[in-house]
């Protein structure tokens, strides 16, 4: 028998301390899917962290280069499976740029409504998952999912599916709103603020949550910009960059809303920014539901099949709930794209993970990962 008293997995010392290498994942309760963190620990402090991903790689881009333009649309649902409609939108935007199709007013409004509903789903679910990582036993998550169900019901009655919506088309939307949908949505939206208040009274003032998140995983604005971080994470670091404002794509130029900005860029700011963004989304939804015009929902020039754009390239980007979601397409005039590339916000926000985790404890690393908001379907593609 080995007379060793040293525990398993010691990888030596750094002179003074013994380091322990722990491989967290891909089967680990807190890695949000099949994600692995190779963590080197000194006691409980992280001294090195290597994110390892690719376990969920499905060849999304290559498949899209082989499929027709239309055929890739349902695949985009499966990138970030929590927000399939914004993925649809980003892809549709790229193809519309490539082909020069225009989108009728009504379809733009429908897209904005669906996009903001998706943002509500994503942000509330994220706050729930974040608290789950902090050990709150799923209570906030269940509350978030309770509200998500109501929004998913809306999606189902409009698009036919709760998650894999496959709704937007190049030059418009697949089908018009069913009768009564606007009223249903209005009632869901009008009840959402009370859910947010409940959520905040459960969490925001909680001393344990504050202790766990204050100053944890702070990301300076400069570093965030250099790392290409986008979305709520960037705005929590105090950088004003929201593609809805910058590009004004879709009908966003017509709505009155504000972009909340954090100042310290720690986990608490990231949590709070998402809560505030949800409140702004509700404002956009109110305006869009009030002002939605009638009319067609498809560009009459649009055709479903045999789309052969002229040779060229296009980059369509939207402000997805997780950050800048971009689709880059090159057409060689054929029925399928010559090159198809996704800029996944989850992946690019994840690359800065080590810088945020160094010197923090392992429990913090889990929370920081949760606050980045990743979906492995999008990271690994």
């Amino acid at each position, binding site marked *: 028998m080995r007379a060793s008293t040293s*525990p*398993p*997995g010691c990888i030596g010392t750094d002179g003074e301390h013994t380091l*322990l290498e*722990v491989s967290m994942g891909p089967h*680990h*309760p*807190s890695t949000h899917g099949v994600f692995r963190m190779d963590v080197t*620990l000194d006691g*409980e402090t992280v001294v090195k962290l290597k994110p390892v991903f690719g376990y969920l790689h499905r060849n999304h881009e290559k498949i899209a280069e082989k499929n027709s333009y239309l055929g890739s649309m349902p695949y985009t649902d499966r990138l970030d499976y929590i927000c399939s409609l914004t993925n649809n939108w980003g892809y549709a935007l790229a193809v519309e740029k490539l082909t020069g199709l225009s989108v009728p007013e009504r379809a733009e409004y429908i897209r904005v409504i669906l996009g903001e509903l998706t943002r509500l789903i994503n942000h509330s679910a994220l706050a729930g998952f974040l*608290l*789950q*990582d*902090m*050990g*709150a*036993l*799923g*209570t906030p998550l*269940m*509350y978030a999912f*309770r509200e998500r169900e109501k929004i998913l019901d809306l999606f189902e009655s409009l698009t036919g599916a709760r998650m894999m919506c496959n709704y937007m088309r190049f030059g418009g939307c697949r089908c018009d709103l069913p009768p009564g949908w606007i009223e249903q949505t209005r009632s869901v939206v009008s009840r959402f603020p009370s859910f947010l208040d409940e959520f905040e009274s*459960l969490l925001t003032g*909680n*001393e*344990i*949550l504050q*202790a*766990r998140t*204050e100053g944890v995983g702070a990301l300076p604005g400069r570093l965030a910009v250099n790392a290409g971080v986008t979305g709520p994470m960037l705005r929590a670091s105090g950088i*004003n960059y*929201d593609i809805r*404002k910058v590009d004004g794509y879709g009908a966003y130029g017509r709505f009155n809303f*504000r*972009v*909340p*900005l*954090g*100042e*310290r860029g720690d986990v*608490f*700011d990231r949590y*709070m*920014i998402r809560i*505030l963004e949800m409140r702004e989304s509700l404002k956009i939804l109110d305006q869009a539901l009030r002002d939605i015009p009638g009319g067609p929902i498809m560009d009459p020039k649009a055709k479903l099949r045999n789309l052969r754009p002229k040779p060229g390239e296009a980059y369509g980007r939207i402000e997805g709930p997780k950050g800048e979601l971009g689709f880059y397409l090159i057409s060689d005039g054929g029925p399928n794209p010559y090159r198809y590339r996704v800029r996944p916000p989850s992946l690019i926000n994840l690359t800065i993970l080590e810088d945020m985790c160094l010197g923090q*404890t*392992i*429990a*913090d690393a*889990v929370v920081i990962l949760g606050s980045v908001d990743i979906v492995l379907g999008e990271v690994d593609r």
Partner: protein
Amino acid sequence: MRGLDQIFVWIGREVAGWAPAPAQPLVSAILIIAGIMAVFGTCFALTTIAERKILGRMQNRFGPNRVGPCGLFQPLADAVKMLTKEDIVPFSADKTLHFLAPLVMTTPIWLAFAVLPFGRNMSALDLDSGILFFFAIGSASELAVFMAGWSSQNKYSLVGAMRAIAQMISYEVPLVLSTVPVLMLAGSLSLNEIVAAQGTHTLGGLARWNVFTPWGLAGLLLFLIAATAESNRSPFDLPEGESEIIAGYLTEYSGFKYALFFLGEYLGLFAITGLAVTLFLGGWRAPFQWLEWVPSWLWFGGKFGVLIFLFIWVRATLPRLRLDQLLNFSWRFLAPLTLINLAVAAAWHWTGAWESAAAAPVRWVLCAALIALPAHWLGRALRGAVPPPRKYHYAE
């Protein structure tokens, strides 16, 4: 009603009476042991299902409701599952320790119930130093946790065991210290005498439970916080913090051994809850004199149930602390506060003569302030320099 109160004592005596005289002590001991094991075994099964259902309701779901009426037979199904699962021992594990750990965890805990008075004349063992016995027995679980974490030869287990031991050592201090005022004022270490000391009544027939005094209330809160940590429950469930270290020292356990750990943890919780009831909530006594007709063991059970519900409620609400915060909380907040509480109890004792209608509230407020102000200051100091409140500005 007197009969109902003493029914268990009576049954025990009658059954033991049938045995031949020399065997009577043995028979009555076996009866008591069987009774305690049956009651708290059932209690364990009921608590697992109640916890899941209450948590479910707090999270707006149903909880288990498929097995039996309202899911009441769920514990049976769980037991069948646990017993039939494959028992996996890691190849590189220290097999002896891996086997012994769940036994060391579960066996001593049963002993702790021996000294708890569950009702009038319903205490298995009236030890002169009962509370000391209780804490001495509890120390075995730390050894078990170490054995489990070490023997599994798994990094998560090891980290979990280190966390657990650090936590248990840290919280044992406030746990024991928070009971000291009670012992001091009751003048005894015997749990029966502590209950007896809370047996008198004050105006309006209100019982003189310790919890109705400032130091008792503070003591109960401190004791409950420390007890939550001792029994590894949320928000102090770091040793098993699922999202961080999977299941801590339980990572490599499955099947029956896991069930034993689970049982041990719940029994520990029950024992410590029973102790809280005995020390601060008057044990089996009724809160008012005119409620004395309700059987004493029902009072004990009721208070016990309320405290268990409180534990479940806290578990449904709070996120988990971090290790350094956990230790700081114990050493820099709980431990000093228990010492201060000792002084408050002394002050209460000295002002014992202030019983008049005018002086009693003064005494109460004075003592409450003596504990509340330090609590406030210690809390401020613990949280450190509070940064200015965050302002979120908006870009148009």
